[in-house]
């Protein structure tokens, strides 16, 4: 029976090899990014020092979207090709994405107070991000709600795919509706429109966040695989 629960040995080996690199690179870019962000980049001529919230807010907002897209893609892979690792990866991604979304919400709302004079408005961007956060929570709840883990994984995968319609809504909400929130200035068709002195730390922070994700997702996947192996062992001992 080993071929199904067989340890994806190759994956485990690869993961163990990548993890330290990801961790150290992440720490290095994070340190550089923070230094630029806090000391080397200028304060905005309108916003003053509050602009520095951007270096957390924007990368975490990007990560919130990135994690969801990754989760949806892996869900599709697991539904269509039934690749067992895809399930594990999607499952490992969800809480990370939820945490980044939470971070984007909190920093955004901290930023909103000085900029817009309120913590929260019900505009399209903010509302759709909140929906994204709830989607993450629903995904995790659904996954744990079944007696049979593989059933939970399949149901949650479908939810992830359905929820994917929210992603373009978040991305383009600022263009489709006139919102308080400002439109894209980095990721756009005609190239970035912000100054290099702000772009550098922003990109550094974005890379650091990505690396953090890579490291954490690998660690979580390894842990999940161990747990699955343990379960299989217990089933075998339980008889039949």
């Amino acid at each position: 029976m080993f071929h199904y629960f067989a340890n994806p040995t190759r994956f485990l080996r690869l993961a163990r090899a990548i993890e330290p690199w990801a961790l150290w690179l992440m720490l290095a870019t994070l340190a550089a990014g923070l230094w630029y962000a806090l000391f080397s980049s200028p304060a905005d001529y309108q916003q003053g020092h509050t602009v520095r919230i951007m270096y957390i807010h924007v990368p975490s907002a990007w990560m919130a979207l990135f994690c969801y897209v990754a989760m949806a893609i892996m869900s599709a892979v697991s539904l269509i090709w039934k690749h067992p690792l895809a399930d594990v990866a999607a499952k490992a991604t969800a809480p990370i994405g939820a945490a980044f979304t939470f971070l984007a919400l909190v920093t955004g709302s901290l930023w909103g107070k000085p900029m817009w004079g309120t913590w929260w408005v019900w505009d399209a961007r903010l509302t759709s991000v909140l929906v994204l956060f709830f989607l993450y929570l629903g995904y995790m709840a659904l996954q744990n709600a079944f007696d049979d883990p593989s059933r939970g994984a399949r149901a949650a995968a479908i939810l992830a795919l359905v929820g994917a319609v929210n992603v373009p809504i978040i991305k383009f909400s600022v263009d489709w509706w006139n919102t308080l929130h400002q439109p894209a200035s980095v990721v756009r068709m005609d190239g970035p429109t912000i100054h290099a002195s702000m772009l550098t730390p922003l990109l550094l922070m974005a890379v650091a966040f990505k690396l953090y994700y890579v490291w954490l997702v690998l660690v979580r996947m390894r842990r999940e695989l161990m747990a699955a192996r343990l379960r299989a062992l217990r089933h075998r001992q339980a008889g039949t």
Partner: protein
Amino acid sequence: MPLFEGTDLDCVRGERLVFEGVRFALDAGGALVLTGANGSGKSTLLRLMAGLLRPARGLIRWDGSDIADGPGSFAAAVQYVGHADAIKPALGVAENVAFWASLRGAPATNVAGALDAFGIAHLARLPARYLSAGQRRRTNLARLLASPARLWLLDEPTTALDADSAARLARVIARHRAGGGMVVVSTHTELGLDGAASLDLSALQMAAS
């Protein structure tokens, strides 16, 4: 007077008369096999005997007193195994059986032996959600041994059982009767109970109509 008896029982379900004038009597060590075509009223009679239904007419007496007369010694003396399984998928097999035993005040030490008697000792710690139809039924039957009761009411107990388990059940019933227990069982197949009385509900219906 027999220990367990019913006299002139009529039963109405959903405004329809299921049977009338049924009578039975059972003494220590006795067995009663209910047979009859589908819909002749076997399950209905068993529910009457358990006290889940009330007869429209007639009396069922345990040890001389009407079983409908509130909680008496009867509740402690009877165990009922119906079509439904009463098994919680989230709990282990042994936990399921142990719960019903402790609810009836029996010690948890009986459980292992009960599982063993039905050949499911190796499944004891498996969550019940993983059981097949026959394994579920055996778990359900293990309840009978986990807490002692004089009277067993079994509704088609061999459903979903393989031949080996059906033989085990026959042995378990024989031992129960040898110890003074009684059993009423409905069935469509041959159970192999020695010296059992039998009540054919189809024949009764013919006679009535």
